[in-house]
């Protein structure tokens, strides 16, 4: 029985370590992506051909540049903000996993980080979906161009909602844990 408990604890610890590494990799990945998009935006004013070749930049956005510079800058800014928010989410996830202690998992710090993740996911949905739709509406009105819809769909809103609910359950767990500790 005891050896089974130890095995389960070791398994959870391993899963946490692997998740931490994955979260860090995700954070680095999206930071690089965000950086490359920023670089592409700056480079497009100096050398547009070179900017086209930079990593992960949507060529459809480059087509806008030929019609309107301001619409191009708006599109790039939206893309950069979404990538930055995604990188931030992964950094917060990494921080959360680093703060998580198996002995006392319910802590106020973890709850705050969960709540922050929910708000950041909501931010991704607002910028990537709502703002992008508004942008596309104005773009087609001003230039007649039709761009594909955003890759960010309502799943982000769904995820934000789920994580927010989990954070509230966590909050209640912290209260119960605190009450238990202060019961004599």
């Amino acid at each position, binding site marked *: 029985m005891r050896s089974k408990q130890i095995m389960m604890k070791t398994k959870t610890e391993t899963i946490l370590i692997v998740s931490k590494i994955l979260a860090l990799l995700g954070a680095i990945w999206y930071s690089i992506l965000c950086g490359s998009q920023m670089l592409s935006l700056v480079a497009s004013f100096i050398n547009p051909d070179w900017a086209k070749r930079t990593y992960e930049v949507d060529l459809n956005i480059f087509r806008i540049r030929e019609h309107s510079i301001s619409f191009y800058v708006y599109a790039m800014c939206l893309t950069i903000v979404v990538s930055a928010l995604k990188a931030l989410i992964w950094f917060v996830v990494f921080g959360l996993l680093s703060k998580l202690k198996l002995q006392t998992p319910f802590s106020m710090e973890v709850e705050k980080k969960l709540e922050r993740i929910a708000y950041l996911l909501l931010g991704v949905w607002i910028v990537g979906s709502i703002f992008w739709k508004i942008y596309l509406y104005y773009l087609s009105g001003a230039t007649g161009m039709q761009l594909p819809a955003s890759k960010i769909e309502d799943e982000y809103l769904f995820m934000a909602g789920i994580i927010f609910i989990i954070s509230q359950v966590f909050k209640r767990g912290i209260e119960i844990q*605190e*009450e238990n500790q*202060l*019961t*004599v």
Partner: protein
Amino acid sequence: MAIIVNLDVMMARRKMSLNELSEKVDLTLSNLSILKTGKAKAIRFSTLDAICKVLDCQPGDILEFVGKGKH
């Protein structure tokens, strides 16, 4: 909180130290300290029973309700 713990008063009346009470009640010093300083959120009946037995008093001697405007 409106509930005040008068454990220190009862301990002084019975001339009992926190260490002695802790040994007799079988509670850790830190838990007794939490109770004495009013930081406790709840008290088990078993703990209350043990304290009352050792201090030879009623629960009302240890716990007191103070409404608004009093104290």
